């Protein structure tokens, strides 16, 4: 062994495809010529590429390289040279497969050997003609080679090697086919986690529109938003192919890829999302984005392992799961944009679809590109997913692409790609029409025709040699049958068993099936080997290691054909074998669902039902009620005992409760009640009773609910069942307060506090005894609410006694009730915070806002919203800074809207401007648009056209960033209002008409009615001003039409201000025309239409017109109307605190006239106090004012501010001197009138 040496080398193997049958195909002489051509072509490339020919193998070579890059470059050069040769001499065309590996080799004499060499040969054997496959090591070594792109083809067994090898395909065609300059691309690794191996090679044929849509959506998502592309189409149309193209495109733009496929036969709670989050890609993306914690939390939530949230209502738990997943997805998209590729979504579980819908709304501003492929089907299974897509489409988040069948030209392109040479017109015609333009069928037919030699390469063109090809079956199913029949019988049998299991399957399952019912024992290696020919012809494909299954049928049709070939009995036996295997594998929820599925299919009812019960329960615990209902329904027919039936019904009731399907629930409950008595379990009977009590309460039958809950409570006490007593007390308390737990912030006036309090007090004791923290928190909050009720009752008493509003602040009883209310609510808040329950904590915060004196301030309800806003900043523990910023922006806008609708214009300006800035800060252009528009409208209410115009311009520029049908309509309406205010009737009418047209286009009946009402009212006002008959006529017509549309909106008529506006317009027109009686009638109708349920303040113009007609005309209604307007003006006068804004308001001619009509004397700022602006007060002084106004005394304030009473007294004297007042009462009034509280 003197000349033996070891070295590291890269080994390249080539193999001439089909060399053995080449001779039989073209004859010896021609075959020899092709082989010789092949040799010289490869040798010339090797010589120029730095390789050394180590061995000639007859129809292939072994070539050594010192560098992996050189080997890669040479392989690409070989393939390109062959391609060129094939183009020039199609009659002598051939294909070569290439495999490359790197490793230690031993040279001895002229020979080279070693494990790395063997592996290289095996890698080559896995390639198809025209393909270059490389091992992981080669890929890693060549990582930074410019102009080389590879695709991960998954894991393969290589003969003689104990572990699977990950192989990559080099995409050598790309550059040759594109003339684009080659950029120094980095190695792009495209994941094909779950997707099937592509069948056809080369670029995608046709589909240029769809590919453009993919590029467009990917780029749009890069601007920081969620985009969804839904690819719909029939089976075999090429959806998965496009998904892979999208994956490649997204990866090249730096996206992190997450890919998963839904499966018809694989089930479990949130199956799709759990599969998605379990991929190794999810793990590595999370690592990169420091989002492992969020990912783990989402995984835990999805599998119901979330201990933090026991005791929440099921709906809340579900939302919690949704929230956790949202946070995880957002976090994953933090570092790099994220591409979610969801294949076969028509099979996704309902719960995952709901989650997707939730996700789409909540992560709309993250850079996420989502692609769905959906098989369009006529059956109901795709119903939910089609709804989802339609909804996303309406939300402007989604683009839908429906893949059409191929045109003849496209079929030709595909065939040329597939066959490597053009196809004759006649052959194309036959293949295209037989396959009806469905790409998968085209491939199948082409394959069959070629195999049967009906299709032959003649003079460089694939030509039909027989007219009808009688040997070729007409249907695709028989084509597949035919392909399957070419497999070994045993292989076919194993595959048929696999087809029973699903589109994706595990080898280990098949091993078990074989040992249980097969003709001979098989181990997994044997099965893998058996499958090699099936993989080679593309019937099945291997899946990468990280996914739970090993193989997938490359097309559903293949599985269906195989499954159809099985007898019913054999299917049952396969299911029974799997069930038997799963039965020993523990009680994980996924396993249980699968076990239930297989046991039922195997006809083992007992096992099937037992497992279904367990699976449905665990699924419900995993917050997937839809899946739970599905499991129950699948098992019900097989349940033999009443106990099993009862349990299934109970589980279904729980699921239906979460899903809020009332009617189904009632039917289910009735059945349950009958069964409960049949089973003879008193506890279960009582449980059913409580469920029925809750249902009665929801139907507003409070007496019935009270009665039933009391009965259960007594029975529970009698039997010593504290848990049941607690449930009964809760139900009773809810029935007596007439509101569900957590829903009321201030009790209804008719609720009598004491009797309602008793069951809650007992519930508090029981919850403490039982250590049930979440129930305790809920009960404490209710007890606090009842104390708020006491304060409310007392306030009514005080005011009825004729006291001034201010007196409420100093009423010790009210203060006492409020401070007593705050204690349990605060305790509840802390419990919720400890439990990490954000919604519970939020609900407590809102309730706390009610336990303050804000109800009695001049701002009234607006003051309370402000209080909620302030309290919300206390939620620091559970919210992130960015979430708070988003929350705050929305809150500001909502207070703006509230204030504007109640004509509290100073507050509307402040919060509107703050909201606008906040929206800009968080980059929410949509909110920015709304805030700007709201401010424009606020200015218009003061007749300030210049400012309104500036804000409209801001709204317009924000609108450009978030175009949408509603936004366009809104802009037109606002511009119309602006033009009307600017006394430009032509422009106003034009804008309103455009708004109406857009509403019609958007199918927004409400929008149309609104547009018409605005047109009527503004045209009437302008007509009245200018005396233009034309305008008056336009107003009259629009008013008439408004009323028609409003009555078409029948269900809500009476509550629509538009009808009132239309009548007011008619009244004004009639008045101007001198038709006084008609005017009076219309004015009265306007007042009737202005129901007390509307925000009357906002419709001052209606009242102004009615007042002018009726008060001016001395109608009998005049006195009432005058009083009504006076009352409203008083409220406005009191709620606006900025004297400047009030002054501007009163300058508006309409408002001035209203004040005159009502004879209201007011609209001046309060004398004496308020001279000093709030700005001159220190922060702490303002805080002290707040504390004082909320009813606290000096020592309480000191405690709150963490100081002593001396300090507080010092600050008060400073406040007194700054405000030039001398009493706390006056200071309180200042705080209230300034809106500080």
């Amino acid at each position, binding site marked *: 062994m003197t000349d033996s040496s070891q070295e590291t080398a890269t080994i390249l193997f080539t193999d001439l495809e089909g060399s053995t049958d080449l001779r039989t195909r073209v004859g010896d002489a021609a075959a020899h010529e092709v082989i010789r051509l092949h040799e010289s072509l490869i040798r010339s490339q090797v010589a120029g590429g730095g390789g050394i020919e180590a061995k000639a193998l007859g129809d292939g070579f072994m070539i050594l390289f010192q560098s992996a890059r050189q080997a890669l470059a040479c392989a690409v050069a070989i393939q390109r040279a062959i391609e060129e040769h094939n183009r020039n001499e199609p009659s002598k065309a051939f294909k070569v497969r290439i495999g490359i590996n790197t490793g230690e080799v031993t040279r001895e004499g002229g020979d080279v050997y070693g494990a790395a060499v063997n592996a290289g040969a095996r890698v080559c054997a896995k390639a198809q003609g025209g393909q270059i496959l490389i091992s992981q090591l080669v890929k890693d070594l060549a990582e930074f080679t410019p102009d080389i792109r590879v695709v991960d083809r998954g894991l393969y067994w290589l003969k003689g090697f104990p572990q699977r090898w990950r192989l990559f395909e080099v995409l050598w065609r790309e550059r040759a086919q594109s003339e684009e300059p080659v950029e120094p691309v980095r190695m792009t690794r495209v994941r094909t986690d779950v997707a099937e191996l592509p069948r056809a090679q080369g670029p995608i044929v046709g589909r240029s529109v769809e590919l453009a849509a993919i590029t467009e959506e990917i780029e749009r998502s890069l601007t920081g938003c969620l985009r969804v592309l839904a690819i719909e189409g029939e089976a075999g149309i090429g959806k998965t192919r496009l998904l892979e193209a999208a994956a490649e495109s997204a990866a090249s733009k730096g996206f992190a890829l997450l890919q998963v496929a839904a499966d018809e036969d694989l089930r479990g709670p949130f199956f799709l999302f759990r599969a998605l989050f379990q991929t190794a890609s999810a793990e590595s993306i999370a690592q990169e984005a420091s989002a492992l914690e969020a990912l783990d939390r989402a995984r835990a939530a999805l599998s119901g392992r979330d201990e933090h949230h026991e005791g929440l209502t099921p709906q809340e738990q579900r939302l919690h799961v949704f929230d956790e997943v949202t946070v995880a997805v957002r976090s994953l998209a933090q570092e790099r944009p994220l591409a979610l590729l969801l294949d076969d979504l028509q099979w996704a579980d309902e719960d995952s679809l709901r989650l997707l819908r939730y996700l789409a709304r909540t992560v709309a501003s993250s850079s996420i590109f989502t692609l769905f492929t959906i098989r369009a089907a006529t059956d109901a299974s795709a119903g939910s997913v089609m*709804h989802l897509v339609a909804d996303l489409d309406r939300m402007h988040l989604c683009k839908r692409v429906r893949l059409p069948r191929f045109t003849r030209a496209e079929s030709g392109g595909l065939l040329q790609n597939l066959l490597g040479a053009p196809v004759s017109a006649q052959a194309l015609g036959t293949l295209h029409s037989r396959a009806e333009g469905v790409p998968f069928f085209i491939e199948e037919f082409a394959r069959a025709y070629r195999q049967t030699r009906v299709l032959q390469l003649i003079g460089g063109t694939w030509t039909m040699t027989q007219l009808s090809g009688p040997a070729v079956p007409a249907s695709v199913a028989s084509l597949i049958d035919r392909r399957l029949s070419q497999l070994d019988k045993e292989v076919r049998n194993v595959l048929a068993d696999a087809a029973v299991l699903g589109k994706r399957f595990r080898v280990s399952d098949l091993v078990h099936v074989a040992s249980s019912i097969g003709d001979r024992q098989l181990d997994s290696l044997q099965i893998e080997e058996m499958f090699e020919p099936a993989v080679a012809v593309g019937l099945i494909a291997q899946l990468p290691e990280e996914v739970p299954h090993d193989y997938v049928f490359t097309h559903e049709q293949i599985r269906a054909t195989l499954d159809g070939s099985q007898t019913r009995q054999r299917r049952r036996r396969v299911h029974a074998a799997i069930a038997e295997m799963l039965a020993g594998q523990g009680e994980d929820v996924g396993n249980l669902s699968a076990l239930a599925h297989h046991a039922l299919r195997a006809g083992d009812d007992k096992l099937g039902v037992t497992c279904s019960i367990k699976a449905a329960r665990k699924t419900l615990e995993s917050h997937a009620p839809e899946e739970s209902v599905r499991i129950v329904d699948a098992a019900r027919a097989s349940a033999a005992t009443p106990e099993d039936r009862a349990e299934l019904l109970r589980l279904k009731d729980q699921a239906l409760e979460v899903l809020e399907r009332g009617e189904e629930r009632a039917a289910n409950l009735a059945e349950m009640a009958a069964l409960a008595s049949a089973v003879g379990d008193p506890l279960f009977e009582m449980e059913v009773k409580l469920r029925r009590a809750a249902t009665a309460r929801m139907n507003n039958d409070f007496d019935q609910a009270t009665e039933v809950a009391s009965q259960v409570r007594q029975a529970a006490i009698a039997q010593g069942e504290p848990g049941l007593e607690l449930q009964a007390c809760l139900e009773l308390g809810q029935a007596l307060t007439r509101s569900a737990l957590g829903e009321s912030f201030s009790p209804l006036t008719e609720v009598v506090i004491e009797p309602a309090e008793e069951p809650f007090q007992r519930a508090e004791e029981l919850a403490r005894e039982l250590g049930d923290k979440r129930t305790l928190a809920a009960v404490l909050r209710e007890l606090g609410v009842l104390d708020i009720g006491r304060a409310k009752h007392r306030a009514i008493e005080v005011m009825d006694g004729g006291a001034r509003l201010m007196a409420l602040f100093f009423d010790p009883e009210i203060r006492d009730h409020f401070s007593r209310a705050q204690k349990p609510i605060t305790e509840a808040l802390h419990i919720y915070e400890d439990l990490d329950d954000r919604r519970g904590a939020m609900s407590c915060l809102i309730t706390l806002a009610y336990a303050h004196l804000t109800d009695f301030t001049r701002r009234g309800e607006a003051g309370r919203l402000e209080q909620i806003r302030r309290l919300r900043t206390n939620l620091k523990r559970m919210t992130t800074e960015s979430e708070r910023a988003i929350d705050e922006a929305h809150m500001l806008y909502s207070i703006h809207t509230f204030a504007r609708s109640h004509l509290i214009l100073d507050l509307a300006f402040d919060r509107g401007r703050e909201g606008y800035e906040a929206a800009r800060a968080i980059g929410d252009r949509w909110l920015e648009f709304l805030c700007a528009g709201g401010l424009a409208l606020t200015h218009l209410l003061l007749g300030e056209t210049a400012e309104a115009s500036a804000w409209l311009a801001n709204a317009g520029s924000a609108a450009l960033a978030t175009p949408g049908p509603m936004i366009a309509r809104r802009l037109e309406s606002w511009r119309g209002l602006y033009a009307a205010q600017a006394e430009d009737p032509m422009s106003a009418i034009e804008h309103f008409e455009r708004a109406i047209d857009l509403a019609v286009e958007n199918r927004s009946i409400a929008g149309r009615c609104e547009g018409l009402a605005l047109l009527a009212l503004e045209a009437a006002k302008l007509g009245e001003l200018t005396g233009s008959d034309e305008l008056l006529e336009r107003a009259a017509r629009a008013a008439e039409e408004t009323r028609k549309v409003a009555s078409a909106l029948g269900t*809500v008529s009476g*509550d629509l201000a538009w009808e009132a506006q239309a009548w007011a317009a008619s009244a004004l027109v009639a008045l101007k025309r001198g038709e006084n009686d008609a005017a009076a009638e219309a004015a009265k109708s306007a007042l009737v239409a202005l129901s007390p349920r509307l925000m009357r303040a906002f419709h001052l113009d209606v009242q102004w017109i009615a007042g002018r007609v009726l008060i001016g005309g001395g109608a009998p209604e005049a006195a009432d109307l005058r009083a009504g307007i006076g009352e409203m003006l008083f409220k406005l006068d009191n709620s606006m605190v900025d004297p400047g804004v009030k002054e501007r308001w009163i300058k508006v001619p309409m408002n001035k006239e209203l004040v005159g009509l009502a004879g209201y004397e007011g609209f001046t700022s309060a004398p004496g106090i308020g001279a000093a602006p709030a700005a001159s007060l220190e922060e702490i002084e303002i805080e002290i004012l707040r504390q004082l106004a909320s009813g606290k005394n000096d020592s309480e304030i000191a405690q709150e501010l963490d100081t002593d009473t001396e300090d507080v007294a010092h600050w008060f004297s400073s406040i007194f001197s700054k405000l030039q007042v001398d009493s706390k009462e006056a200071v309180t009034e200042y705080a209230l009138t300034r809106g500080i509280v």
Partner: protein
Amino acid sequence: MIRVVIDRRRCVGAGTCIFVAPTVFRWREGDLLKPELVDPTTVEEDVIREAAATCPTNAILIEEVEEVTS
């Protein structure tokens, strides 16, 4: 089709949703404390989103409508 759900545990009855979309929301019969749903199909879905955005306590959730099966 989307479904609008009012989370009554968060709704404080400010009524901004009714102001923004009076054909989608209205005050419940009997009491004027909290709104109920009328007909979400009378407006563009953006209007419902706007109503949800104006809710001071985020009490309006947008969800899927079940297909009515006979």
